[in-house]
């Protein structure tokens, strides 16, 4: 792609001509493979916003929506800087042809990385408009005071943005060496009108009226339907293929075979089901698939018997032989995303021989590059229209359903819609790998931590197969997998401390799942600390606070407050009812503490989480409403991880196929919740999408320990487990 000038680029996109526009263009280029990692920085931001001649502010939304509703938060930043109402901002999700590549939406980094560049662009626009207003009135800019939607003078004159902006293009660019305008968003002293307000998602109306917002909803003329046969693992190859009878299906259009890809195109969805049902494939697997193989691969004790694990993440005067107060092994299950929307994509080749793709993806620019590589088309001839996702949770970063749609559409030269079935969604899952943890802790006579040794084995996460080209993988894997090590370092300090891990190649596909390894690792650590406190006859919260003394004040604050909050509620009477606590730090800047009340009911033979309280501190609370929603979601996922979900691997197949055999929390499983968001106006906002899940599962496990004496060493926990204590 030729580098256009910024002005040229905006005109080329069909962005409304006329009006005033603030631009921070990206200067970096995307690499062809791997995720799009062009994040905004001080010099190259991500905001395209414009005041149209009618005074309306519109912005290209730089983030992909999957439930976090983060663009609404960025619109709040724009509204704060420009003295507008957030609800009046018009947001547009750009196609890959509208703007240069923007980093993929992942890792709960959107507010952290995009809020400041967005604020800078909006503030630069505001100050330029203030200058225009000043020259119109022949006053110095300082005489123009902020007013809703414009400026005013001390004498009472008003100028709105519509008065200032005309049909001549006015481009506002900020170079790196220019001083920054005042950023209202980050001014802790300022009484804010937009930031800090619980603004509802700007597109909420469409979500309650059944609007066509997801990929499969897009009406495309002449569309036909297709699907591909899904192998149990992506590196499988076809040993034997039987397609007899497929062409006899009523409505059949075409069978497409391309190496290990087999798919069909038909006139209706039921014909696709029938045709796929007739295709029989024997797959050749590179590794046998079964649960025993996974268990063998992650057997941390067997590996430790052979010596040190591959990656040493922390090593501080480590002592191998000492008197261990705690020496426990924790096993955490494989889990899948199970987002509510099974993936779908529509592809067509248009009259200009351009390949168009409608899809819900965390990384539209990667889809564009990979579709170009896949088809041999130039990148200029591929356009991706990103649609809202019905959930993401880390599972939608790859060229997956898009590949099916693209290959089938190219083969029939007709628009093809591919709607994965729920079983396709499970079979193709890039799951959160199971893990096994050995945790050893020693203390002095007063109970103070002296030794901490955490060793664990899990599957690859960021460096799972297919996430990078095959030739690059061995080189990448020489370094640590940042997904595998996420959350591994404990907040508790000890003079002797070692954390080591190993990541292995699972027989099934793996990938990024909400919080990566942090939730499993912190489940193990917080369970072990709870057990240690009980062993010493101490209150677990008091004990943890004592071990955190002098460190991590934001974490201690969360833990203290969540105890106060939880104790406002009387535990219901009866046997098997108790409360447990856990806390944790995610990505060094997100702090959370959770209490869980559980009832282990001998009559119904069920474990029920009655109530969860959560105190979370992720810095500035730009939109407390959305932060709260993310916590609620993490609490629901905590119940699923602790008590329900288990991705089942059968013999050379994936056994979990639908919600009947992979149960996720339902309405009756959802506890009452009481959530407090700690606002830190002086600390830049961090993401909340995958924070509370680090402390929820251990809080539930610790409550079960209190209620029954059973220390959960394996997830998910069933009622039967608690009776074998």
């Amino acid at each position, binding site marked *: 792609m030729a580098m256009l000038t910024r002005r040229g680029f905006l005109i080329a996109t069909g962005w409304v001509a006329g009006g005033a526009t603030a631009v921070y263009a990206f200067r970096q280029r995307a690499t062809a493979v791997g995720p799009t990692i062009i994040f905004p920085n001080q010099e190259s931001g991500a905001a395209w916003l414009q005041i149209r001649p009618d005074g309306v502010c519109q912005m290209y939304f730089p983030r992909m929506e999957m439930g976090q509703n983060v663009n609404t938060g960025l619109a709040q930043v724009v509204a704060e800087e420009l003295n507008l109402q957030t609800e009046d901002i018009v947001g547009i999700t750009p196609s890959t042809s509208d703007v240069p590549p923007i980093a993929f939406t992942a890792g709960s980094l959107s507010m952290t990385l995009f809020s400041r560049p967005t604020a800078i662009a909006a503030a630069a626009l505001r100050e330029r408009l203030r200058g225009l207003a000043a020259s119109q009135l022949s006053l110095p800019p300082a005489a123009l005071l902020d007013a809703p939607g414009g400026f005013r003078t001390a004498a009472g004159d008003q100028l709105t943005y519509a008065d200032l902006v005309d049909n001549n293009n006015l481009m506002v660019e900020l170079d790196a060496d220019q001083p920054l305008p005042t950023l209202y968003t980050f001014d802790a002293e300022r009484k804010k009108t937009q930031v800090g307000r619980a603004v509802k998602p700007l597109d909420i109306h469409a979500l309650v009226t059944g609007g066509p917002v997801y990929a499969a909803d897009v009406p495309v003329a002449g569309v036909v339907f297709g699907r591909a046969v899904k192998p149990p693992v992506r590196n499988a190859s076809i040993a034997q293929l039987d397609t007899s009878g497929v062409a006899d299906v009523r409505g059949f259009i075409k069978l497409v075979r391309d190496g290990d890809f087999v798919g069909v195109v038909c006139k209706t969805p039921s014909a696709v089901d029938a045709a796929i049902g007739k295709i029989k494939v024997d797959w050749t697997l590179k590794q046998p698939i079964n649960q025993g193989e996974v268990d063998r691969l992650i057997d941390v004790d067997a590996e430790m018997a052979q010596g040190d694990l591959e990656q040493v993440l922390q090593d501080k005067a480590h002592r191998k032989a000492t008197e261990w107060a705690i020496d426990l092994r924790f096993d955490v299950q494989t889990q899948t995303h199970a987002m509510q929307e099974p993936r779908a994509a529509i592809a067509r080749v248009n009259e200009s021989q351009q390949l168009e793709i409608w899809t819900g993806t965390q990384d539209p620019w990667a889809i564009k590059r990979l579709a170009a590589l896949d088809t041999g088309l130039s990148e200029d001839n591929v356009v991706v229209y990103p649609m809202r996702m019905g959930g993401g949770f880390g599972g939608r970063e790859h060229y997956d359903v898009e590949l099916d749609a693209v290959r089938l559409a190219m083969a029939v030269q007709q628009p093809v819609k591919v709607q994965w079935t729920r079983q396709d969604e499970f079979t193709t899952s890039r799951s959160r790998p199971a893990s096994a943890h050995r945790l050893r802790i020693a203390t002095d006579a007063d109970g103070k931590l002296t030794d901490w040794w955490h060793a664990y084995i899990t599957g690859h996460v960021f460096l799972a197969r297919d996430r990078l080209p095959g030739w690059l993988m061995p080189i990448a894997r020489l370094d640590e997998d940042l997904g595998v090590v996420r959350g591994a370092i404990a907040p508790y300090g000890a003079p002797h401390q070692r954390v080591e891990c190993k990541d292995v190649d699972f027989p099934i596909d793996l990938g990024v799942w909400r919080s990566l390894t942090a939730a499993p690792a912190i489940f193990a650590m917080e369970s072990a600390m709870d057990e240690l406190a009980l062993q010493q006859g101490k209150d677990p919260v008091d004990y943890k606070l004592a071990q955190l003394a002098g460190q991590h004040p934001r974490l201690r604050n969360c833990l203290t407050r969540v105890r106060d909050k939880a104790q406002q509620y009387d535990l219901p009477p009866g046997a098997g009812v108790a409360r447990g606590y856990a806390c944790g730090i995610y990505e060094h800047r997100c702090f959370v503490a959770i209490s869980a009340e559980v009832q282990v009911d001998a009559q119904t033979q069920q474990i029920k989480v009655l109530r969860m309280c959560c105190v979370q501190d992720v810095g500035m609370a730009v939109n407390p409403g959305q932060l709260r929603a993310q916590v609620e979601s993490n609490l629901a996922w905590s119940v699923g991880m602790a008590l329900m979900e288990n991705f089942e691997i059968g013999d050379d197949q994936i056994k979990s196929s639908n919600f009947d055999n992979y149960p996720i929390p339902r*309405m009756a499983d959802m506890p009452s919740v009481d959530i407090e968001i700690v606002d830190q106006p002086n600390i830049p906002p961090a993401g909340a999408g995958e924070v509370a899940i680090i402390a929820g599962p251990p809080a539930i496990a610790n409550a079960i320990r209190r209620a029954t004496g059973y220390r959960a060493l394996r997830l998910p926990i069933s009622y039967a487990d608690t009776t074998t204590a």
Partner: protein
Amino acid sequence: MKLRVNGVERGVDSGWQNENLLVVLREQLGLAGSRYGCGIGQCGACVVHVDGAPVASCMVPVTQAADKDILTIEGLAAPDGALHPLQQAWIDENVPQCGYCQSGQIMQALALLQQNSDPTDADIDLAMNGNLCRCGTYDRIRKAIKNAALTMQEVS
């Protein structure tokens, strides 16, 4: 073959009579608000009303819906666009996260309130048990149903 959808008579092309009701609504009639989630009636994303009863439209052969009254999420608001109290309550409680399950949730909640104008938590747990929300908006759904129940009592 004809369907009566949201009060309007709609024809179904002959090539589509082997499909389920959800597919016909979405792909033939352009009513994409009912969503596909599991295909086996386990998630509730596709709930519509057939002759006043909530059903998982992915499980209903379209031929079985012939000549019946079908209500989908698109038919819930008034013709002038005024939202149904349930839709308004969903906005007031800021229920949706990803939003994918919410059409089905609202249609299921409508069936509940038509049977029971003042549901308890236990009533809601029972009635909504077939509607999954992976984002975990359940607590807000509960509140929104109760709010809508109040509004609907005031109206009636």
